[in-house]
Structures are given as structure tokens and as C-alpha cells.
């Protein structure tokens, strides 16, 4: 029964979306207040209906209703509760429903918390949001119905892909979608602004919290996915430049650029046309990711079961959304008035550099991701583009970006003083030189990239702290006064500092773990000792143990260092019967200083096991850095200026010591 309720609720949500997409837009054009006012209740109603539908599907999973085709194909009665729930979005149909749920959630949030928006803009934003909703609702109802029945119902289901039966992956998609779909709000704001033909600092201030939230969620989602790959795929790697990873990374790059360019619109009323374009591009890349994952156009380990009709549908939808918005952009953008003037060396100039590098990086990732398709379509040749291309193009773009992050926030708006900024960074420069010297001495003839990485970490880390200390006038005024300044500093400044330090932490993790990692692969028998850097791993043996819905081969290593016990690692290989598949569960001991990582593989038939053992110093800092970036986003979100519903304050003068202190 619940499946039918879910289906009806979806159809009703579609009807509401049609109303929400049309009447408020017309009302805004004609100044009809009543029609505009329809948007808010419609957005809330649409969310409620989709929530009912989502609850219905979840219920079918919870009670293992195998008369629902989707449940039968993707669930199994013996599955633990968590994976019955996460199974809802562990498949194409259900994940789309989750996508729509979040889309309408954001729509409802704009309706409920957007009281400070002018009614016309609010109506238009919600109408555009509903247009996107129509597209996805039609997609689900016409090509990917999660509520299709199966008669006769099977006795048990096929089970969820065991790789996905993992707590990290259970929450990875919701975070990722909060990011992807959060960008839809920015997109709707951009399109609404183009329709109105007016973009001003107030607009940027309204958009920024949504961009920040989407960006922070996307950061979390990508980091979770990368951490999952790290411990579940068992190769010790954490980023593979797989098309699906790239599909989530491109919107992140665009959103990061957008986050920064929106500051310029907000503070200086400049870069408007570019910012609008970024908002459109960021969401377009989210949609492109959806297309790539679900159409089977590219080879990927992550691809959903693909279906050509779905591909055609999404492509048509992309054509309407992206083509439509870019056409609108081409018509309206030239009429936007350019804003304030500024010298190349200025805060604006720094943010433009940031945008240039980020969007170039985004373009290179896009090119590499789609290149196999281009070549196949033009010449019929099949190639795959892998890490050598991406590392070769992406890293050279990130190096100047990270280096500039330390300088940018120290430049004043309009006309900055580069020499002054560099002067304040003297301490950072000295420390950087010392660190590089030290690293050189440690590494002897190590890779140059490692030295560069160390240099960037110290430069940015110290630079960000110096910049923060400068805002407090630390040491130049009394400690009490500095404290007062710290208390009064906008939250956005704390957010920025935290996020920039996060970048430094991440570069640190990447550099050190890639450079100083020790890897040992060999066959071990019980009692064997293996030296991994300065640790000694003793293989105690392996045994077969039953899990809730799998059989597990568990190996045991005791790890010592200089004779002192360090830890016990128990890597597993799980064999799932439904569907038949093996997964590796790496055993990882994480500390701030680094990870010890053990994987056990197949027995060799003679009492030995193939194992991989790693010592990966500081690798955890990669995710610690991501976490700091995400937290930076959320801290910035609590800034008074963004607090939803807070009365908009008069703009602070741009050149004061504190004021305009760039978020």
C-alpha cells in the first residue's frame, strides 16, 4: 500500500511544482502580489509531498516489501537495519528520490527563511527552483519509478552491493547531494536575477549563505567519499581521478570560485556578470555529473546501472536547464552595469586570480574527464585519462593558488600594497626557507614536489596565522584590547582563517603521506615478522568468522616499535553471498602522526596470505584539512550578516582595519 501512496504523493508534488513554476513567475512580471505569494506555500507543500513519498519508499525497505521491484533488486531481509535504510539511496531510483527530497527541502528552506528577500525575487527564485523540480519529478515518474510493483513477489531480495554496505557510504550520498542540490539555490538566484536584470550587493548577500552551505556540504561529501575509497578499496589510495570523483570535484571547484567572487559582488559591486556565470556553471556541472554517472557515457567503477532512455532524458533536461540559463545569460549579461574600479594589485585582484586559477583547474578536469568521449566520438579510439594527466595539469595550477591564499587576504580593497603585504609575511618566508632546508636535508635527493609541498604548507599556514594576528593587532596593543578585537571580529573572518588553515593541513597530509610512505607487499605465514619503516608487524594468523550477512577472513597483526607494543591490526576480507562479492576492510590505526594500514588478501593455498602493509605518515591530515574547510564554511555561515532573518546592516566602509575584512 505504501508504495502507491508514495507514487501518488510524487504525482501530486509534480502538480504543485507546475503551479509553483508558473504562477509566481507571471505574478512577479505583472506585479500581482497574490500570485507571487503562491510560491512560498507551494514550496513547502512540494517538500511535504516528496517527504511522504520518500518515507513510503523507506518504509518498503524497512519491512522488506519485496513486491516493490526496487526493494527486491536492492535489499535483502538479512541486511542490518542501517543498510536497509541506506539501501533506499544506494540505487538509481532511490538516489534520485533523495535528490528531489533535498531539492524541495532547499526550496522550502528558501520559502521559510527568506523573509528578508523582496517578494518579486523570492517568487522568481522559487519558481526557477520548481522548474528544476519538475524536470527531476518527470524523470523519476517517466523513466525511473522506484515504486514499480513486482508480481509475484520473490521470497527474498538481491541484496545491496556489499561495497556500499558501509557506514561511511551510507551517509556519503546525502552529504554530496546536499552540496550538489544546494547549488541549485544559487543557480535559481542567478537566473532570477538575470530575469529581473538587477544584481547588487544585497543580492550577493542573500546568495552567499546558500553558496556557503552547499560548498561546506559538498566538501564533506567529497571528503567522506575519498575516505571511504581509502579504507574500503584497500589500495591505500584516496583519490583516483575517476570520472565520478571528478563529477563531484568540478562543481566543488566552481563553487569555491563562486564563494570568493560573490565576496567581490557583495563588498565592491564588481564581477557581477562573472559571478552569475559561475553560479550557473556550478549547478550545470552538478547536473553534468548526474548525467555522466547515470547515462553510461563514461567508464567508471561507480556507475549506476545504466539505461539509454534515461541518458536521453537527462540530456534533454540538461539542454533545457543549461542551454536555457546560458541563453538568458547571453541576452542579459551584457546589460549588467560594471561596478567599482580597482587596481590589479588589490583584494579584488587577488580574488580574480583565485577565480582564474580555480576555473582553469575546473576546465582541465572537465577536459580530462570528457576527453575519452571526445576521442571516441571523433576517431573511434578508446583511451582512458588517468592520474598522470590530472596530476600534471592540476598541481601546477594549485601551487600558485595556495601560495596566493596567504597574500590575498592582506591586500586592501581597490588598491593593495603588495610590498607591504609581503613585508608582513616576512616571518612566513623565513620559516618557509627553514622548513624547506630541513626537508631537503631529510630527503637527500627526494622529489622536488615534496619540497614545494612543504614550502606551501609553511607559507600558507604561517601566513594565515600572521594575517589573523594582524587583525587582532597582537603584540601591538595590550592583550586585553586584542582579546576585545578577537571577540568582535566577524565570524566570517574566523571561518576564512579556519578554511585556509584547512587547505594548509590538507597539503601537508598529501605531501608528507605521498613522500614518506612505506609500502610492503608480500606473502606472510603465521609467525612471520615484517618490517614497515620503523614498525614491526607480526602476523599472528587468520581465521574465518561469520558476520551478520557475510563470512569474514580476519587476519591479526601485532605491531611493535622498538620492542614496545603499538597496536593490534585486524584487517578483513568479507565474502558476501547476496550478491556474491568480496570486499576488503583495511585495518587502520589512525593518529595525528600518521596511519598504520593493513590489508589481507587471498590465501595462497600453502598457509600464507598476500598482505599489504603501509605506514602513511600524516595521511589523516588530508581529511582533517577537509573537516577544517567544512567547519570554516559553517562558522562563516553563522556570521551576523548572513544570519537568516537578521536585518541587513548598513554596509561597513571598505577600508577600515576590521571592516570588509574579507570573509
Amino acid at each position, binding site marked *: 500500500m505504501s508504495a502507491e501512496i508514495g507514487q501518488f504523493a510524487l504525482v501530486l508534488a509534480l502538480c504543485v511544482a507546475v503551479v509553483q513554476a508558473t504562477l509566481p513567475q507571471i505574478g512577479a512580471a505583472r506585479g500581482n502580489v497574490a500570485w507571487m505569494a503562491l510560491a512560498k506555500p507551494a514550496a513547502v507543500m512540494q517538500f511535504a509531498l516528496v517527504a511522504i513519498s520518500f518515507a513510503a519508499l523507506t518504509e518498503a525497505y524497512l519491512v522488506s516489501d519485496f513486491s516493490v521491484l526496487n526493494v527486491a533488486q536492492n535489499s535483502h531481509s538479512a541486511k542490518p537495519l542501517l543498510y536497509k535504510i541506506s539501501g533506499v539511496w544506494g540505487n538509481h531510483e532511490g538516489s534520485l528520490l533523495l535528490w528531489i527530497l533535498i531539492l524541495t527541502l532547499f526550496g522550502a528552506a528558501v520559502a521559510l527563511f527568506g523573509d528578508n528577500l523582496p517578494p518579486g525575487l523570492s517568487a522568481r527564485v522559487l519558481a526557477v527552483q520548481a522548474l528544476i523540480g519538475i524536470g527531476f519529478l518527470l524523470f523519476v515518474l517517466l523513466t525511473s519509478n522506484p515504486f514499480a510493483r513486482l508480481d509475484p513477489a520473490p521470497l527474498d531480495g538481491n541484496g545491496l552491493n556489499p561495497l556500499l554496505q558501509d557506514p561511511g557510504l551510507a551517509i556519503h550520498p546525502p552529504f554530496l547531494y546536499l552540496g550538489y542540490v544546494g547549488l541549485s539555490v544559487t543557480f535559481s538566484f542567478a537566473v532570477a536575477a538575470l530575469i529581473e536584470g538587477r544584481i547588487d550587493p544585497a543580492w550577493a548577500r542573500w546568495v552567499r549563505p546558500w553558496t556557503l552551505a552547499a560548498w561546506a556540504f559538498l566538501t564533506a561529501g567529497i571528503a567522506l567519499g575519498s575516505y571511504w575509497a581509502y579504507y574500503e578499496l584497500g*589500495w591505500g589510495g584516496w583519490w583516483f581521478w575517476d570520472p565520478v570523483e571528478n563529477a563531484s570535484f568540478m562543481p566543488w571547484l566552481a563553487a569555491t570560485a563562486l564563494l570568493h567572487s560573490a565576496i567581490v559582488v557583495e563588498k565592491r559591486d*564588481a*564581477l*557581477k*556578470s*562573472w559571478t552569475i*556565470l559561475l553560479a*550557473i*556553471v556550478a549547478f*550545470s556541472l552538478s547536473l*553534468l555529473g548526474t*548525467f555522466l554517472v547515470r*547515462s*553510461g*557515457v*563514461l*567508464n567508471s567503477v561507480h556507475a549506476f546501472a545504466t539505461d*539509454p532512455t534515461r*541518458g*536521453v532524458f537527462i*540530456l534533454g533536461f*540538461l*539542454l533545457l536547464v*543549461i*542551454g536555457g540559463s*546560458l*541563453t538568458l*545569460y*547571453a*541576452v542579459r*549579461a*551584457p546589460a549588467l*552595469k*560594471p*561596478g567599482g*574600479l*580597482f587596481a590589479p594589485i588589490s583584494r579584488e585582484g587577488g580574488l*580574480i586570480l583565485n577565480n582564474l586559477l580555480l576555473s582553469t583547474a575546473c576546465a582541465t578536469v572537465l577536459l580530462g574527464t*570528457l576527453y*575519452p*568521449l*571526445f576521442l*571516441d*566520438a571523433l576517431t573511434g579510439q*578508446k583511451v*582512458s585519462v588517468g592520474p598522470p594527466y590530472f596530476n600534471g595539469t592540476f598541481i601546477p595550477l594549485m601551487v600558485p593558488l595556495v601560495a596566493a591564499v596567504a597574500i590575498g587576504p592582506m591586500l586592501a580593497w581597490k588598491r593593495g600594497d603588495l610590498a607591504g603585504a609581503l613585508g608582513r609575511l616576512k616571518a612566513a618566508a623565513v620559516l618557509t626557507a627553514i622548513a624547506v632546508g630541513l626537508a631537503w636535508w631529510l630527503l637527500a635527493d627526494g622529489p622536488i614536489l615534496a619540497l614545494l609541498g612543504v614550502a606551501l604548507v609553511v607559507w600558507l599556514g604561517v601566513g594565515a596565522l600572521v594575517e589573523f594576528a594582524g587583525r587582532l593587532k597582537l603584540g601591538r596593543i595590550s592583550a586585553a584590547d586584542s582579546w576585545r578585537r578577537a571577540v568582535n571580529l566577524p565570524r566570517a573572518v574566523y571561518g576564512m582563517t579556519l578554511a585556509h588553515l584547512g587547505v594548509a593541513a590538507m597539503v601537508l597530509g598529501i605531501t608528507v603521506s605521498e613522500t614518506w610512505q612505506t609500502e610492503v*607487499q608480500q606473502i606472510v605465514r603465521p609467525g612471520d615478522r615484517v618490517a614497515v619503516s620503523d614498525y614491526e608487524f607480526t602476523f599472528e594468523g587468520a581465521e574465518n568468522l561469520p558476520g551478520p550477512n557475510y563470512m569474514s577472513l580476519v587476519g591479526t597483526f601485532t605491531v611493535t616499535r622498538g620492542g614496545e607494543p603499538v597496536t593490534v591490526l585486524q584487517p578483513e576480507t568479507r565474502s558476501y553471498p547476496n550478491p*556474491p562479492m*568480496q570486499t576488503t576492510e583495511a585495518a587502520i590505526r589512525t593518529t595525528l602522526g600518521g596511519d598504520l594500514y593493513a590489508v589481507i*588478501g*587471498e590465501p*595462497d*593455498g600453502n598457509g600464507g596470505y*598476500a598482505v599489504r602493509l603501509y605506514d602513511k605518515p600524516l595521511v589523516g591530515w588530508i581529511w582533517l584539512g577537509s573537516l577544517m574547510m567544512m567547519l570554516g564554511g559553517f562558522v562563516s555561515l553563522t556570521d551576523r550578516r548572513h544570519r537568516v532573518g537578521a536585518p541587513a546592516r548598513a554596509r561597513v566602509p571598505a577600508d577600515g582595519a576590521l571592516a570588509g575584512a574579507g570573509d
Partner: protein
Amino acid sequence: MAQSDNTADAPAKVNAARRLVLATVPLAVAAVIGLFLYRGLSLDPGQIPSALINKPAPDFSLSAVQGRELGLDTEDLKGEVSLVNVFASWCVACRAEHPLFTELGRQGVVTIHGLNYKDRPKDAAEWLDRYGDPYTRTGADVDGRVGIEFGVYGVPETFVVDKNGVIVEKIIGPVTPHILKEKLLPLIAELKR
């Protein structure tokens, strides 16, 4: 970008035209990508192996891996059903699948030849000494030329060759017990009949 664009009237017009052109660029780029995506829908990125299936194995002749006697050439693939396993000492996945082949070789189910792809002779020899050598014949494809003829694009790959030296099937990536049981063994049994 949004720098100083507004001065006098005449340049303003030129600027307006330029801005219009600039503003159309994203649309044009998106359109081109869209065309490729549309074309991509009717292409299958996974359809790589088809080129050599049901075709005779390419002409080649290779000397054996260091320390081994029997080299490998096209004629060796004729006369009996065989597997040609492309391996390399630098390939981690090869190590994963290797125990299966040593076991298969010991049971004598099928003749297995090894094509050592882009490897240093010494490394390959040491690797075989260490992990076991199930291969009847080996070919050292040091520069990867023969690999190209075979359409190898990743190691490991495993080709099934019938009595007439025709390639019947190709497995990309490591052979798992599942693939062996469900796909390779039935196919070999059928070819041998």
C-alpha cells in the same frame, strides 16, 4: 572581466558588441559539449575488447623471459586450447590473480602462456621465481609492441585462444575465482570438445 568598460560613447558601443560576443561564449561551449554527450549516448565505452575477438591472434615472435627456455610465437598458439596471460612484475593486480594460474597450471586443466608486458627481464624472472611459474611458454615483450598488437590496454589481461589460434575471449583485469569458475572453465571445456 568587470573592469573599467564605460568611458565615451563610441568605445561604449564597441564594448557592448564585445560583451555580447563574450556572453555567448559559455553557451557555445556548452552546446559543443552537449553534442558530444549526445553522440556519447550511442557509443559504448566498455566495448573495447571486441576488436580481436574471433580473429586469429596477431603475428608475433618473442623470446622467453630471462632464464626460461621456450619463447612464444603465433604458431605456438595453434594445435591446442590455451590461455595467454598478460602479466608484469610491476602490476599489483597480477599478483592477486597469479595464485589462480599457478593452481590451474598444477592441475593441468589448460596450457597457459605468459606474455610479459613492458617489464625488465631481471624483474620478470625474479617475479616468476618468487610467485611461481605456471607458464608453458613465455614471451618477453620488453617494449610492449606485441601488447599493442593484442590490444592490451591494462595489465593483467587474459586471452582464451582456441585450437586454430583464434582469440575467443578476453578478460580485462585480474581473473577472480568467480570468473574462472563461471566463465573460463566452462569455455575451455567447450573449446576442448
